[in-house]
């Protein structure tokens, strides 16, 4: 039953609603008839004649009885009619129900059929879809494969190209570097030659004398001459300096003096650090040769 209701909820609801409607209609119909009866039996106050009360009563009773009977008859008829109606209605209902059921069955059949058809269609569609999908997938796969292939090919190509380009660039760079190195060497040589020419020029000029004098003064001030540094002493010291004049080493290379003379010379150079900077940069030499040759 529940399952049926669930399955046919709409017809069941309609049926129940219809039955309810009928009952209500019946109730209202009864009521209306009663009201109508009451309204129709209201006495008319004009033309009243006094009569014997019993007669009247009897008459009234009679009339009332008649009315009551009529009413009862009417009620019975009505009940009968209602019953008939009810019966009819029930029959109709039954018929409707049957029809409904039949319709439902038909509908169900239709639905079933539709479902079946839909399923079939769906199946067909599914098959079709599957086929399409398969085909699409196949196509996609093929496409992907093609794409991959193409990509690989492209990549390989790109790589080859890149490698080729790199190799080419490397070769070019190498060639360029070699060319530059050659050019640099040439430039260096040229520059060196030019610098030396300039240096030669400056070295012979007054700036060199100025620089030499500045160095002499600084070192004379710094040399604390030991007693053994008498005339006849001749010592060469190789001085390494950095731009700015700071002495990084002082090496006595040749000396006919004793260790005290050598040490005093070495100390003089360190004490003179930083050495004066040359008036012309070309006069700067990382290595200077100082000759200590006391004449007094």
């Amino acid at each position, binding site marked *: 039953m529940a399952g049926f209701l669930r399955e046919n909820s709409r017809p069941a609801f309609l049926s129940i609603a219809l039955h309810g409607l009928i009952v209500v209609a019946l109730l209202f119909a009864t009521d209306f008839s009663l009201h109508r009866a009451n309204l129709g039996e209201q006495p008319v106050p004009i033309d009243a004649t006094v009569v014997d009360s019993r007669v009247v009563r009897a008459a009234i009773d009679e009339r009332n009885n008649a009315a009551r009977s009529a009413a009862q008859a009417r009620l019975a008829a009505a009940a009968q009619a209602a019953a008939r109606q009810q019966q009819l209605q029930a029959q109709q209902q039954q018929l409707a129900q049957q029809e409904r059921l039949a319709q439902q069955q038909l509908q169900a059949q239709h639905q079933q059929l539709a479902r079946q058809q839909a399923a079939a269609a769906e199946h067909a569609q599914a098959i079709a879809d599957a086929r399409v999908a398969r085909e699409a997938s196949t196509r996609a796969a093929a496409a992907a494969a093609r794409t991959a292939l193409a990509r690989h090919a492209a990549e390989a190509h790109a790589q080859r190209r890149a490698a080729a380009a790199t190799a080419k660039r490397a070769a070019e760079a*190498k060639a360029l570097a*070699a060319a530059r190195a*050659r050019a640099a*060497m*040439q430039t*260096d*040589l040229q520059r*060196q030659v030019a610098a*030396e020419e300039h*240096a030669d020029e400056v*070295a012979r000029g007054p700036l060199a004398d100025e620089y*030499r004098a500045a*160095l*002499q003064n600084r*070192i*004379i*001030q*710094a*040399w*604390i*001459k*030991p*007693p*053994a*540094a008498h005339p006849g002493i001749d010592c060469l010291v190789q001085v390494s300096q950095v731009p700015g004049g700071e002495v990084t080493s002082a090496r006595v290379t040749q000396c006919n003096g*004793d*260790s*005290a*003379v050598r*040490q*005093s010379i*070495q*100390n*003089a150079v*360190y*004490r003179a650090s930083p050495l004066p900077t040359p008036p012309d940069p070309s*006069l700067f*030499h990382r*290595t*200077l*040769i*100082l*000759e*200590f*040759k*006391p*004449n*007094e």
Partner: protein
Amino acid sequence: MNEKSRPFALALLLLAGLAACASPAHAAFVVQITRGQDTAIPIAIVPFAAPPGASPFDVAGLVAQDLDGSGRFKSMDRRDMIDLPHSGAEISFDDWRRLNDDYIVVGGMTMPAPDRYDIAFELYNVLTRQRLLGYQIHTDTAGLRLAGHQIADKVFQSILGIRGAFATRVAYVLVLGHVPHRTFQLVVADADGANPHVVMQSSQPLMSPAWSPDGKELAYVSFEDKLPSIYVQVLKTGARRVVSATAGVNQAPAWSPDGRKLAVTLSNRAGNLDIYILDLATHALTRVTHNPGIDTEPQWSNDGKSLYFTSDRDGGPQIFQVPLAPGSRPRRLTFQGSYNARPRLSPDGSQLALVTRVHGKFRIATFDLQHHGGLRVLTHGRFDESPSYAPNGAEIIYATHAAGRGVLALVSTDGRVQQTLISPQGDVEEPVWGPFGSE
């Protein structure tokens, strides 16, 4: 690089190499230095680590005093020291260089036993960071002064190339009191005047002390018998003997380099003074000069083959030299000024120290024997007399007058540094510097 460019590159490399090889010689910028400074060398003598509780003697302080006294060093004031290292590992060279020290001496003293001291010291060149010296001296309390002088000697020699003479001694005559109550003392003291010992005392004049070459004996003239006699005294024992007591003058003894003879000044009967050579073993006398003038104050040449002496044969006193070969004639050396006397030969034999008179004042001068370069006056006193070379030739000790007294004074051979030594009392006369080994 392809095969074609390779020879080109090689050629370039070769060229570059040649250029690199050639450039130093080409670039050599030679600067000649013909002069220097005579200034003192800055040195830091860091106070030595002392044994706990005991501070017997400031050895480092004495080293600094010696070096400063030589005039060739200027030791750093201790108050300026920012650090007190006691060993080479503790020296922060950059700091000491910033403080303008060229050298630094560090050391420490330990006491291995009562009255025993071990002194360890090191000398470093601050500029080159080289360790120049490292020594240990073992001594006792009485020897701490000598140890200080010995350290100063080592430092002096290491830096200047000249043996230090701080650990030597001097002898001089000290005259106490006034005529007629005078006392004459023969004193031997450390070269800095400290630690004086009286080796001979007399109420009569003592004169002309002279060190034997080995520093073990002193010859001197004593008037203790009212007449002058020449004595030789052994310093260690005090034993002495008369070596010359001829009639008349016995004066100015001078030891031969081998220590076997004395050159002396004797007078003949006429009172004429001439120079003789006395053989100490045989007492034989050999006359060297034969001149009616005064010939005195002999001094041996280093080879022992000639004598320098003072003579007034040409008028005023001048310096002469005479070979000891028979028949040789003296040769006059000094011609500058009217008074040149008391010649003393420098240890290297290159010059004489003498007393010269300049504008009526007696001063110490040197005379260049090798180049006959004339006199070089070193001192500035009024009565500077009796010069005597330190055995290293770096300084000359002499007697001068200060505040009315005769005192000891020192001048460096180059005349740059002069100092007057502490003299306790009396008048100092005729100082003579002992040889190395006279300690």
